[in-house]
């Protein structure tokens, strides 16, 4: 029994990893189509990506939109998380459910909603429109990460500061915020990634003017399978790799306590939809 499960497990690992690895050689391929293994190697498509405005503009749009989404999400979520974690009040459980609701709604449903709703205000095909829509999807994720951090917060530290004469505001700035900083950063990072990766809503509402990178990739794969996609995929994959491999390395170098992304992802997978 054990042996069978372990053999199947090894096959499963190959299945999980192989498709991730294949995009890297593809990005250096000189083939015009999806030929694998590539007939030859060059950097031509990297050059194409970094000089082609049809790819650079969506990349830039995605960065702006994800940054805007992160700022708006944090402005809304940080106070709300304090309210929900630190206070008891009537309607709290309702508020909890409402905050997580966007996770339960399939993105295609929200896309249909935003398509006509944002259109009424002339917000379709604008950065602001996409930011407003993406914030809705980022709110529950940022909230889950932050509330988990805030629940583990040792409040005696705040009481100690206040008993030493610090005002509530001073305590918040000098004690609460510094301790909560890693949680805030990770929560903001998740909001950013959620927006940067979001495809379905962006396909419907970002249009030509605010076209995001995932939308551009989607159109490109659907229409022509432009080989530049392999370059973009490799770059995105490299970012993920850096994000996962670097923090534990830095941690072992500086031996400072930073949550490992793998453990973080594990806890989010347990948490989010």
């Amino acid at each position, binding site marked *: 029994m054990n042996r069978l499960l372990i053999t199947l497990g090894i096959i499963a690992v190959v299945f999980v990893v192989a498709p991730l690895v294949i995009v890297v050689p593809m990005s250096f391929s000189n083939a015009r189509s*999806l030929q694998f293994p590539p007939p030859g190697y060059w950097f031509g498509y990297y050059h194409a990506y970094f000089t082609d405005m049809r790819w650079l503009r969506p990349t830039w749009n995605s960065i702006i939109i994800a940054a805007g989404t992160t700022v708006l999400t944090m402005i809304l979520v940080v106070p709300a998380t304090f309210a929900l974690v630190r206070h008891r009040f009537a309607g709290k459980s309702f508020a909890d459910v409402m905050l997580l609701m966007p996770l339960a709604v399939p993105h295609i449903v929200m896309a249909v909603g935003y398509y006509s709703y944002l259109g009424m205000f002339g917000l379709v095909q604008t950065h602001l429109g996409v930011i407003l829509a993406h914030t809705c999807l980022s709110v529950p994720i940022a909230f889950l990460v932050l509330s988990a951090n805030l629940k583990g917060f040792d409040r005696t530290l705040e009481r100690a500061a206040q008993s030493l004469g610090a005002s509530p505001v001073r305590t918040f700035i000098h004690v609460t915020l510094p301790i909560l900083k890693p949680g805030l950063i990770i929560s903001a990072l998740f909001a950013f990634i959620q927006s940067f990766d979001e495809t379905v809503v962006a396909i419907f509402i970002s249009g030509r003017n605010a076209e995001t990178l995932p939308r551009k990739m989607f159109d490109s794969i659907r229409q022509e399978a432009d080989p530049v996609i392999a370059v973009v995929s490799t770059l995105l994959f490299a970012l993920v790799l850096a994000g996962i491999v670097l923090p534990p390395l830095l941690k072992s170098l500086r031996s400072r306590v930073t949550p490992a992304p793998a453990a973080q992802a594990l806890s989010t997978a347990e948490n989010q939809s």
Partner: protein
Amino acid sequence: MQATIAKLAERPNLWPWLLLTPLAIYLAVFFLVPLANVVFMSFTEPRLTLANYERVLTGALYQRVFVNTFATAALVTAVCLLVGYPLAFLMTRSSPRTAMLILTLVTMSFWTSFLVRTYAWMVLLGDSGPIIGFLKAIGIEQPPHLLFTRFSSTLAMVHILAPYMIMNIYSVMRKIDPVLIRSAQSLGARGAALFRHVYLPLTAPGIANGSVLVFVICLGFYVTPVLLGSPREQMIAGLIGTEIEEFLAFGRGSAMAIILLLITLVILTIYHRRFGLDKLWG
């Protein structure tokens, strides 16, 4: 101003509402109203009518798409389980180092964009890709067309959703007390019996969590079926997209979206009653 703040501070039960107000307003305006708008459109486009629901619930094309979506979601969930369970088991039986390495690989897959993984499958299964190449090399003259079929979209969806299953099962498996297994063994449980009566029930919560998650996400999957699937065998989300983008049929598209939403919510509610959603969401 100062006086107002002082007054508010004296009534601590007002604070949470004050802190929640901005988010509540935002969610009302940009979450609830757009959703209500979908409901509204499903009954009023092109005019006040129930015809959209009638058409979507009784039309042969729509029924086929609904059946197809459920069948695909069930198949994807089953295969994810088949991939995820042994992999999670392998992790619990490996050295901490190997387990960490596998977890890192799964995490990498989890964080890599849907589109990148979809594209990777396009390369793998394409007509000039390695799998067709291998089939030709071992002497199969006319290998089957793999891309743009139900097979390719199902396989890619399994790959994309497997990390959810793996992480859910692994998080349960690693908490299993080895003493339980040893005591079962000392009582004579071996092999399949040990697995069926001890290990499987202990890991059931992870299986349930992972399966609900994968099934629900799969029901509403848009990107991968549209890019890799057969245009003749669409799933619900893909058809909603076609109705809106190609036919500008907002009424029918909205009616389907509402049905998809209701099905999703019913599944999550049943799960919530039975196990508690907090287990799924933390």
